[in-house]
């Protein structure tokens, strides 16, 4: 049986509206397209800010970094993409120690804010 990812979406409102996408399963080259497709649907329907809850992600490889980068680029659009040095409209919640290690290995943590508390994460979007 191949890798599998379940995706749930909810909406939170603080300073702005945020789509919270909870992922359950493994993020690899086989499941990357499912995440990207869901993000595309959300962005097409007006989502401007996205919080990815990684609490239940049991494996993530470079496909995860790639999909985060692609989603962040789509959320930024073309206007501020050229000057941006941070994923302001995409943040992650509760990545595992293993995932954090991958972020740090490639310096991805410099672009992507990560939170342990969902309230802090929600409030961080402006």
């Amino acid at each position, binding site marked *: 049986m191949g890798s599998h990812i379940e995706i749930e979406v909810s909406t939170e409102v603080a300073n702005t509206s945020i789509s919270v996408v909870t992922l359950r399963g493994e993020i690899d080259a*086989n499941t990357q397209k499912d995440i990207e497709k869901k993000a595309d649907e959300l962005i097409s329907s007006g989502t401007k800010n996205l919080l990815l809850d990684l609490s239940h992600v049991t494996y993530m*490889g470079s496909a995860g970094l790639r999909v985060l980068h692609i989603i962040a680029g789509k959320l930024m659009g073309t206007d501020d993409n050229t000057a941006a040095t941070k994923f302001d409209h995409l943040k992650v919640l509760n990545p595992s120690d293993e995932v954090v290690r991958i972020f740090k290995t490639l310096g991805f943590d410099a672009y992507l804010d990560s939170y342990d508390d969902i309230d802090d994460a929600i409030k961080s979007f402006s």
Partner: protein
Amino acid sequence: MSNVKQFLRIDANLVELASVRGFIERTAHEFEVQDEALSDIRLAVDELVTNTILHGYNGAEGRIDIELQFESGTGDFIVILRDQAPIFDPFSNVPQHSVGEKLAQVKAGGYGLQLVQKAMTKSFHSVTESGGNQLTLIRHL
């Protein structure tokens, strides 16, 4: 001094990735590999198998052989991947991202091979006698 070897042969299909990771986990536990090293080995193999399926075979049918070996004398965990895709050395031109670049200048790709190189003690490509690719990964435990 060579110890137990384990083998797995898979079809060149992304649905096999979960099986590959399971194989790595079972074997690593058998060899009593610690968690951080297990994560590194699993990640590196997943990345290279993905690379071979997507870019080596590029949609064509094919197989990938995975051999795992623990050398107790040196304390090295060795992974050998063999395939019959067109000859290509994935380590010949690994893109490097640098922190602080503007995002528009950073491509959303090339992460996998960088992770492999950083996770492994040594990684290199060679050509087998039958004219296939062989990728050797060594992780010192």
